[in-house]
Each structure stands twice: as structure tokens, then as C-alpha cells.
């Protein structure tokens, strides 16, 4: 029986970690993800899990310890945010290229500077090309569900890649909301045992992990890594399907909200999608054919599926809670417009950078985005592609 509870996002992920009972958790505290290892450490000291908890001296060491433990054959997890993720950078690439399915709770926070502890997506967007699978979630429920699914996705033999479970710092990590928790036994059965084909602690089949990889082989290894990311898409859907059968909660590569007959749409990540759904409901009540796409899987990016989902829409606003300083548009915008290349010329797309450094995102502001889209849908004219929402200038 699932349990109705109320937890913060951080508590929910820590509970998922307890239910999974990994072999090793190595972590270093940083706001707003600190509570994840903090709650988990109490589960360790209370004997609720038999995990080896490694309180390392930096995030670089946290990821290094995870890499070592996962390479040895253990199931390994950690949590971090912002500059902590930045300090892991070097090791993120090594985890991915060594094909080690580590699970990381990435509690989104603005990457300094200027120094700021609040939410945006500049941290994980910076790591988007590190080779990690990235899954984004709207609420504590999704942060919890995605964390449990991440284990299965990463460890699938066709994938063997690390996974980031991304959710909004403070907005999701520190807000207490209703949640349905799975039974411990169901989570245990769902994730199963980690059974890698190759690992260091296997005396009958010795391997090397992380040796020098010169021109005769490096390129082939990168090609295999790229293939794993391509394979991940199918596996993500299979795992979601199994999860749906178990919990009744449906997940895909992205969520389509009132998109069936939508003429205007917003593409958005994480908690703002929830606020935007409220705005969509209001607009629908007034006869406006508004819809929303909440991207769940950012790596691998669902290129064909997004293109298909937006093919009948007249105007789209892609919302970025991170700037990429390319003087043209944010990272999600770049991905979505690339995906739409096949339908080039039929869909008008604009971009908004919003909510940087924890700037609160109000329903009125999101409504103004839809108002702009209505105007574009009506006139077919786009006066400005790259825009800012809720900034003083």
C-alpha cells in the first residue's frame, strides 16, 4: 500500500535513498541539497540502511568516491547543488565515460557569481554535455519518483550511464507538500540488485577502469557512450511504463498539458510548469487554446517527439531558467528550436530567460507570456525572439 504523506523535496529524495538502500553514499553539504545527505546520514546511524556513508571533504572527492565505489561494483549515490556540482565537473565526465550509473540528486541552484543560494538551472544546464542523463521534476513527488526510476534507467545494460535527478532548490527542496510514498518492499523489488557485467571487485574477470585511452580506441569509446545515450530514450519509457503499472503515476519524455488542440504553448522545466498549468487552466476557462509542454528528460533530448508535439501550434515560448550567454537564447530554447528544424518556418518560437537567482515567478508574468503568444499567433509576426521575464531594465 502506498502511503499518503507530506514531505519536502529533500526529505522525499532521502526517503527514496533509504528505500533503495545503496551500497555507498558519498557527499559534501551545500545549500539547498544539504538535507538529502543529512537525513540519509541519520538513516545510516539509526541502522535503517546498511550503506557505507562517506563524508568527504569536497564535492570533487564526493564524485571521486562515487566513481571508485561504483567501479568496484557498488550502487552509489550523492546529492549536490550549484558550486558543488561545478566542483564535481571534472569527475562528472569521468563517471559518464567510465559508464558508471551513479545517481545524483541535483537540487537546482544558481551557479555563482554573483553569490546566490537560490534557484535557477544554471548549475545542471552547465553540466548538460557531461554525458549524464538529466531528468527534471516539477514537485517533491516527481523528484522522488524520478530518483527511483533513475536507478533502473542508469543501470540498464543498454545504457550504463549516470543520472541526475534535477529539481528546484527551495521551491521544491524546502517546501512541504503532499506526496504518495511507495512501500519499502515495492521500491526494493523495483530497483532490484545492481549486477554489472564488468566491475573491479571481480577476481574471475579482471578489468581496468579509467586507463589512458589513446587515438586507436578513444573515439570508439565516445561513440559507444553516444549510443548509450540514444538507447536511454527507449529504456526511460520502459522503466516509466513499469513504474506506472506499480504506482499509477505516468511519466514520459515530457508531459503534454492541454496540448490536444493548443494553438499557443509554453515549453518549461521543473516547478514553474506547475505555476504555468494554473495559468493554462485560467486561459482555457476564457476560451484561449493554451497548452504546455514540461520537458522531463533533457538528456537525451527528445528531438523528434518535441517536434511532433509542437507541429500544430502557431506560437511557442521556450522558458529558460538559465542563460547561456550566446547572445541568442537559453539552452532549452536552443534544443527546442533545433528539434523544430524539420518544421522550420511553420512554428514561431520565442525565448524567455526568467527566474534567475531565485527571482519568484508569478502567475501574472506567465500570463503575459501567453498574451504575447496570442498576439504572435494572430499576426504571424515576431518582433523579439530573445526576451527576459520579470527583470528590471
Amino acid at each position, binding site marked *: 500500500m502506498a502511503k499518503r504523506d507530506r514531505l519536502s523535496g529533500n526529505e522525499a529524495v532521502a526517503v527514496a535513498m533509504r528505500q533503495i538502500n545503496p551500497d555507498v553514499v558519498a557527499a559534501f553539504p551545500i545549500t539547498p541539497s544539504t538535507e538529502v545527505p543529512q537525513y540519509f546520514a541519520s538513516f545510516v546511524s539509526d541502522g535503517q540502511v546498511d550503506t557505507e556513508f562517506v563524508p568527504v571533504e569536497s564535492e570533487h572527492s564526493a564524485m571521486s568516491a562515487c566513481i571508485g565505489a561504483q567501479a568496484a561494483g557498488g550502487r552509489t549515490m550523492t546529492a549536490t547543488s550549484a558550486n558543488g556540482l561545478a566542483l564535481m565537473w571534472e569527475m562528472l565526465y569521468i563517471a559518464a565515460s567510465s559508464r558508471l550509473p551513479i545517481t545524483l540528486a541535483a537540487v537546482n541552484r544558481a551557479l555563482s557569481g554573483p553569490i546566490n543560494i537560490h534557484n535557477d538551472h544554471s548549475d545542471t544546464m552547465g553540466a548538460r554535455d557531461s554525458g549524464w542523463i538529466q531528468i527534471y521534476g516539477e514537485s517533491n513527488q516527481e523528484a522522488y519518483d524520478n530518483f527511483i526510476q533513475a536507478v533502473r534507467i542508469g543501470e540498464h545494460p543498454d545504457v550504463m550511464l549516470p543520472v541526475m535527478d534535477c529539481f528546484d532548490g527551495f521551491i521544491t527542496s524546502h517546501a*512541504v507538500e503532499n506526496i504518495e510514498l511507495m512501500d519499502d518492499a515495492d521500491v526494493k523489488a523495483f530497483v532490484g540488485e545492481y549486477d554489472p557485467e564488468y566491475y573491479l571487485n571481480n577476481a574471475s574477470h579482471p578489468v581496468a577502469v579509467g586507463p589512458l585511452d589513446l587515438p586507436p580506441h578513444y573515439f570508439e569509446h565516445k561513440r559507444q557512450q553516444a549510443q548509450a545515450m540514444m538507447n536511454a530514450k527507449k529504456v526511460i519509457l520502459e522503466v516509466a511504463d513499469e513504474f506506472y503499472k506499480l504506482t499509477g503515476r505516468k511519466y514520459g519524455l515530457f508531459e503534454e498539458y492541454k496540448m490536444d488542440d493548443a494553438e499557443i504553448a509554453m515549453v518549461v522545466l521543473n516547478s514553474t510548469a506547475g505555476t504555468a498549468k494554473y495559468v493554462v487552466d485560467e486561459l482555457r476557462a476564457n476560451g484561449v487554446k493554451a497548452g504546455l509542454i514540461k520537458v522531463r528528460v533533457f538528456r537525451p533530448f527528445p528531438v523528434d517527439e518535441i517536434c511532433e508535439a509542437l507541429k500544430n501550434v502557431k506560437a511557442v515560448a521556450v522558458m529558460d531558467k538559465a542563460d547561456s550567454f550566446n547572445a541568442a537564447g537559453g539552452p532549452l530554447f536552443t534544443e527546442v528550436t533545433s528539434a523544430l528544424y524539420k518544421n522550420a518556418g511553420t512554428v514561431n518560437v520565442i525565448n524567455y530567460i526568467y527566474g534567475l537567482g531565485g527571482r519568484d515567478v508569478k502567475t501574472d508574468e506567465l500570463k503575459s507570456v501567453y498574451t504575447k503568444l496570442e498576439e504572435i499567433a494572430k499576426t504571424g509576426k515576431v518582433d523579439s525572439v530573445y526576451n527576459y521575464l520579470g527583470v528590471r531594465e
Partner: protein
Amino acid sequence: MSKVLEIRWHGRGGQGAKTASLLLADAAFNTGKYIQGFPEYGPERMGAPITAYNRISDTPITVHSNIYEPDYVVVVDETLIGSVDVTAGLKEDGGIVINTSKSPAEVAPKLKGYAGKICTIDAKEISEACLGKNFPNTPMLAAIVKVANVMDPGEFIKDMEDSFAHKFASKPQVIEGNMNALKRSMEEVKGL
């Protein structure tokens, strides 16, 4: 659109406004509601103004912004009035609950002509009498439950008794004081 009850808390760091908002969320959750309880984190230090929020609803809540047009406001520290715009956006069919020894008529002139319900409760006096110390958040919690009619008072008291029994398992001697503070606050809140 379904009706969501929105409450904004104003306090100072260290007074327990965030904890009170989480306790309110807990109590409403226990009556079967959908809830949100969240603080707005600023420069966290003792004495700095802080804000916390609650949404309470019969249906799932998807909005994740702060609350700009609350139904009710709770002021845990009356010295904030004047420096913080406590009635900003406050709905006139809602109300405000202020921790003060003064009467609603005495504080009304400081509230920028707010025309809704103004309630006061001497949470400091109640806390000092029941708990021996100034922990205003417990009486403020009871006052807002009463004023905003969040739930049945009897159900609330019963729920808090269970909650305190769990929370203060290692120091049961404080449970009675906290329960008395809640009960007194529900009876003594003025301006209903």
C-alpha cells in the same frame, strides 16, 4: 477554479514563523487536505524579517510562486508593522492576526486603512504564562486556525496533541504547556 486558502506569515528569524507554517500544513494535511508550507529564505539571521506561506486546498495545488494576494496574514512580531508592508495584497474578505497586547481598534490605524477583519492575540503573554518563555508561534498557530476557520477547533487540538506527543517525545514536560497555550489562544483571540 477551486478555492485555495492562502496564508502569509510575517515574523523575525528565530521566532518560529516557518515552524508554525509547517505545523499548520501538518494539521491541515491530517484533515485530508492538500497543503503547501514553505518559507521565503532571505539573509537568514536572528531578528531579520522572514516570510513563510501556506496554501490549503481540497484539490491538488500546482502553483509554486509566493503568495501575493493572501486570504489571511499572521504577524508574529508587531514591531514589523511599518517596516514591512504586512497588508500588501491582503484580501478584504479575509483578515489579519497580530501578536500584540493591544486591541484590534488600537492597531487598526497602523494598517494603512485595511478594511478586512483585524484580530489580535497576546501571544507573548500566553507563551510566557504557559511555557515560561516567549515562543509566540504556538499561540499564533492556534489563533490563525480559529480566525481563518482552517479546521474544526476540537479536531485541531486533538491533532496537535498527537503531533506534540511525537515531536516532544524526549521532553514530555513541555507538552501540557504547549497545549494550554493553544487552547488559551483560541479562546482569547480578539476581533472575530
